[in-house]
């Protein structure tokens, strides 16, 4: 191995020749190798169907890779099971493209779930929920059922749930698809704050504005293959 111990220690995500096939013969991802450093904000772009969501699902262990190796925080996540897997998932916050909100529960309850599973104290949970809702300008939606919210509001609640437990890795799938410019800016501010406190963030997006003028790395997928990997401001 040519890698020095220092790089392995600071890599949050290590993907080596990862591929994913769906039966009967869809190749969603092929031969992806990338290393994402701890604390990095990393963008994932590509046309619809390029494989962005599939890659994120592999990273949070919702799908298993057909081939290749994925390590998160130094662990091969597809070999971890039981309580260890649960502990790992508590450290990974995911905002799904389809939100996965519990539509018959209130906004506050939805956000609280990710903290309840790691047994945070109720008063800490309440305070955190209020602060997140304030940052996303959703204070007045605290007790509404998420099923009654607009798409854009649901999207922000899903994001709030993903970051609530202060995870070390945040995976965000299309966070601004339904949002206006102001709300988009608030979402990016929230993510920037998470990044500043040390979280590694992977964002799948179609919105060029999010990475255009940043020095963050951007990986472009095309038909499941790595198309390019450059800094945002170099694109």
């Amino acid at each position, binding site marked *: 191995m040519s890698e020095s111990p220092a790089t392995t220690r600071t890599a949050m995500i290590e993907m080596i020749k990862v591929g994913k096939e769906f039966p009967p013969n869809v190749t969603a991802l092929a031969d992806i190798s990338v290393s994402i450093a701890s604390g990095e904000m990393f963008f994932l772009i590509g046309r619809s169907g390029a494989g962005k969501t599939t890659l994120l699902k592999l990273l*949070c262990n*919702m799908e298993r890779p057909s081939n290749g190796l994925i390590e998160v925080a130094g662990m091969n996540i597809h070999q971890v099971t*039981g*309580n260890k*897997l*649960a*502990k*790992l*998932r*508590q*450290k*990974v916050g*995911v905002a799904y493209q389809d939100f*996965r909100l*519990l539509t018959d529960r209130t906004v506050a309850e939805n956000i609280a*779930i*990710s903290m*309840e*599973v*790691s*047994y*945070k*104290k*109720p008063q800490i949970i309440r305070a955190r929920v209020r602060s997140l809702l304030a940052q996303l300008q959703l204070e007045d939606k605290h007790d509404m059922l998420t099923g009654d919210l607009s798409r854009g509001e649901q999207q922000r609640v899903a994001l709030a*749930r993903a970051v609530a*437990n202060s995870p070390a890795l945040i995976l965000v799938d299309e966070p601004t698809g339904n949002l206006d410019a102001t709300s988009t800016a608030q979402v990016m501010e929230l993510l920037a704050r998470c990044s500043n406190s040390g979280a590694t963030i992977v964002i799948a997006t179609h919105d060029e504005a999010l990475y255009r003028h940043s020095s963050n790395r951007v990986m472009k997928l095309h038909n499941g293959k790595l198309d390019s990997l450059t800094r945002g401001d170099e694109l």
Partner: protein
Amino acid sequence: MNFWLSVIRQTGRNLRQTWATQFMTCLTVSLSVLMFSFFYLIYINILSAGNKVSDDLRLIVYLDEEPGPQLQEQLRLKITQFDQVQEVKFISKAEAYSRFTEQLGDNRDVLTDMPTDFLPASIEVVPLKNLRSLNQVKLFAEYLATIPGSQKVQYGQKWVERFYYFTQLLSIVVLLSGTLLILTATFMVASTIRLTIFGRQEELELLKLVGATNNYIRTPFLLEGIFQGLMGSFLGLTALYTLFQWTTGHFSGAGFLDLFTFTFFPSEIIVTIVLLSIILCTAGSYTSMQKFLRI
């Protein structure tokens, strides 16, 4: 601490969301507990009544001849071969005569012309004071009839036989209602939990994704089972106790209940019934989880 807080909150939410089904399950469990404990209560009361009645139970074997001391020993051996007994007492013709005169009291002069040995000698066998000997008394009597020199065996035939069949029947009813209790408790709870699991599939899926441990997901379902068992047995036993109070209140002083004092379960049995239904309901919820909660 926080684990239990979260889990209990989760359980409360489950119960609230599916309260109608939960209520029906609880009702079914308590009805089965009521039915079982009702028959069981009657059974144990009959048993203790049987014990009291068997205080007076004795078999009398009338003999052809008055046995000498050696023969008495042999007879005693033969009798105890069948079963342990409390007492074997030989009554000679003379003793029988003197007992009889005592019983006659002031009218004893009717016997003046009779020979003092006109009454047969007999053996009085007092079986052990338990229900087994009460139930076996018929067999015992048949056995005693076969010992040499026996002429006739006497005991409260009709009464004892009826009692025997009644307790037999009752024990079958107790067993049946016990089986019913086991079936309803486990199956009803299992099916309620299955419904809850299916109804909350989406949430359980999400809980897994955000890193809930197995225990976090499963414990609320087990608590639900414990709760059902506790509530079901509590309601069932309370209903039985109310019924018991009402019955004894209304019929005290009337002849039939004076025969034996009707008592409620001792606390050990109450605790056992409650624990048993908790265990059964929890087992029901556990089997459903094993089948339908893929983690």
